[in-house]
C-alpha cells in the first residue's frame, strides 16, 4: 500500500482536521465527527443531514454549505456513522422546521439513522423524516435482498432538496423533492481496479490486467460480474443499457447526466466516456440538458466510473441551477 497517510487507523480524524483548516466557512467538530454549515441552524429552514462511510469524498462533507447540506456525519472508512454522531448533527441543524435525513440504502446506514431518529424524537422532539436513496440498477430489487444501493443519485438529491430547503420550503415539500429525484434517477458503475482500504493495507479484490468489474457499488465490494476489458464505447453500452431499460427513459426526455469518477480515474478518461455516453443518448433521442463530470462519489483510489441519469422537468432543472456554495460544488454565486 502506498498512500499519503500517517497512521492507517487515524485517516478519518486527520482528514477532518485538514477540512477544518481548509474551509473556515464550515464548522468541523472533530470530537463529535460532524461537519456543519457555520451559520446553522437557520431559523425557519429545514435542516438537511446526510452521512455515511468515509472514503467517498467529496461525498458528503464536501457538499455542506449554502444550497445543499446543513451537516454531514462521516463514519469510519466504508462504515456508516454511529447514532450519536447523527444525533449531534441533527441537533446542530434543527431550527424548529424539521430535519431531513438523506440515507443511502445500505443495511448499516439505514439502521444507524433509524436509531438516531428514534433518539432524536425521544430527546428533543425534533421532527425528523428520512429519504432512502436506492438508484443502483446493478442490484435486483426484491423482497429477498437488502434492495438497491444508493450511489450517484445521492449527490443530485442533496443538491435539489438542498435548493428547496434554501428557498424556505417546508419539510414535507423538501422530502417530496428528494423522493422525486430518487424515483427519477438510475445509476450503474464499473471498476478497472480495486480500491485499498488503509486499515486493511492491500486491495479488496484482485482483478487481472485483462478484466473489469461491472455493477460495482462504492465500497470496494465486487460487482455483479467480471468481464474481459473492453473499449470505452462498449463500456458505455454496458452501463447505459440497464439504466435505460429500468426507468423508461423515452425519446424526447431531458436528463441530467452525471458521469462520476471512482477516485482513481483521470478526467481525460471521464470526458472520453462522456462523449460515448452522449452519443448513445443522442441515438435514443434523449437530450442531455444538464451535466456533471468528475470524481464526486468516489471509492477511495478505485479506477472506474459510474453513470447516473435523472429525468428532469422544469422544477428539477431550476433546483439544479439554483445557487450552491460548498467545497466541492459551487455555482450561481
Amino acid at each position, binding site marked *: 500500500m502506498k498512500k499519503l497517510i500517517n497512521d492507517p487507523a487515524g485517516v478519518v480524524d486527520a482528514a477532518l482536521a485538514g477540512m477544518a483548516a481548509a474551509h473556515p466557512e464550515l464548522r468541523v467538530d472533530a470530537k463529535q465527527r460532524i461537519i456543519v454549515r457555520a451559520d446553522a441552524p437557520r431559523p425557519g429552514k429545514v435542516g438537511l443531514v446526510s452521512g455515511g462511510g468515509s472514503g467517498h469524498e467529496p461525498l458528503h462533507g464536501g457538499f455542506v454549505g449554502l444550497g445543499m447540506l446543513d451537516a454531514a456525519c462521516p463514519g469510519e472508512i466504508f*462504515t456508516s456513522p454511529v447514532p450519536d454522531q447523527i444525533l449531534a448533527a441533527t441537533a446542530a441543524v434543527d431550527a424548529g422546521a424539521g430535519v431531513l435525513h438523506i440515507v443511502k440504502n445500505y443495511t448499516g446506514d439505514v439502521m444507524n439513522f433509524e436509531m438516531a431518529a428514534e433518539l432524536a424524537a425521544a430527546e428533543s422532539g425534533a421532527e425528523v423524516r428520512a429519504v432512502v436513496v436506492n438508484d443502483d440498477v446493478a442490484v435486483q430489487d426484491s423482497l429477498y435482498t437488502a434492495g438497491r444501493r444508493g450511489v450517484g443519485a445521492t449527490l443530485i438529491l442533496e443538491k435539489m432538496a438542498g435548493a428547496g430547503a434554501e428557498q424556505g420550503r417546508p419539510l414535507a415539500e423538501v422530502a417530496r423533492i428528494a423522493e422525486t429525484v430518487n424515483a427519477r434517477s438510475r445509476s450503474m458503475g464499473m471498476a478497472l481496479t480495486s480500491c485499498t482500504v488503509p486499515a486493511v493495507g492491500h486491495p479488496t479484490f484482485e482483478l487481472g490486467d485483462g478484466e473489469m468489474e461491472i455493477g460495482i457499488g462504492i465500497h470496494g465490494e465486487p460487482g455483479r460480474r467480471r468481464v474481459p476489458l473492453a473499449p470505452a464505447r462498449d463500456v458505455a453500452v454496458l452501463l447505459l443499457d440497464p439504466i435505460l431499460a429500468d426507468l423508461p427513459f423515452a425519446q424526447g426526455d431531458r436528463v441530467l447526466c452525471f458521469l462520476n469518477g471512482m477516485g482513481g480515474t483521470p478526467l481525460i478518461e471521464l470526458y472520453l466516456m462522456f462523449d460515448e455516453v452522449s452519443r448513445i443518448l443522442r441515438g435514443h433521442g434523449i437530450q442531455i440538458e444538464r451535466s456533471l463530470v468528475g470524481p464526486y462519489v468516489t471509492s477511495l483510489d478505485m479506477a472506474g466510473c459510474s453513470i447516473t441519469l435523472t429525468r428532469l422537468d422544469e422544477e428539477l432543472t431550476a433546483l439544479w441551477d439554483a445557487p450552491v456554495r460548498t467545497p466541492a460544488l459551487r455555482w450561481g454565486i
Partner: protein
Amino acid sequence: MAAVDTAAWVRGFAALVGEHEAELTALDAAIGDADHGTNMRRGMTAVVAALDDSQPGTPGEVSKQTAMALIRAVGGASGPLFGTFFLRFAAAIGSGMDIADFARAFRAGVDGVIARGKAEPGDKTMVDTLVPAADALDTRVAGGASTEAVLDAAVSAAAAGRDATTPLVARKGRASYLGERSAGHQDPGATSAALLVLAARAAVR
C-alpha cells in the same frame, strides 16, 4: 452451581475478536467491504475500556455497558446488531446468574437482532449462527443438562450454523448485492457470532 461470568464472557469475546480480526476482515473482503474485523476490534476495544472504567456489578449492567459502547464505537451493521443483542440480553438477564437465566437472555438478544436487522435463518447472516445456538441452549436447559454441557451444545450448534452459511446466497446485508456470487463464502457476521458463543463456554465459572 456453575454459571457464565458475564464480564469474563465479554472480555473473552474481545480477546477472540482481536485474534481473529484479520480472518473476519478477509471473509468480509470476499463478499462485503473488508471492514468487519477492524470494526469489531474497534468496538470490543471500546467495550473493554468502558468495563475497566466503570467496573459494573450485575450481569445486566455489564451487558448494557457493552451494548452502549458497541453502538457508540462501531457503526455499520455490526454496531446496531451486536449492540441490540447486548441491550436485550441486559434487560432479560438483570441480576440473574444461572444457565437458565443465560439461555432466556440469549434468546431475548437473538430476537432483538432479528427485529433490528429483519433477517431470517437462511439469509446468510449472524442469525444463522445465533438461532441454532439459542435453540440448543433452550433444549439442553429444558433437559436439565449441566452448564458446561448446555454451552458445549450451543458452541457446536453455532459452528454448524456458521459453516452452513458458506453455500448460501445472501439475502440481507451488503453481500446480498453480489447475488449468486455470494455463494461459496462463509459469512463474516455468522463467524463473529460463533466467537461470541465460544467465549461464553470459556467464561463458565
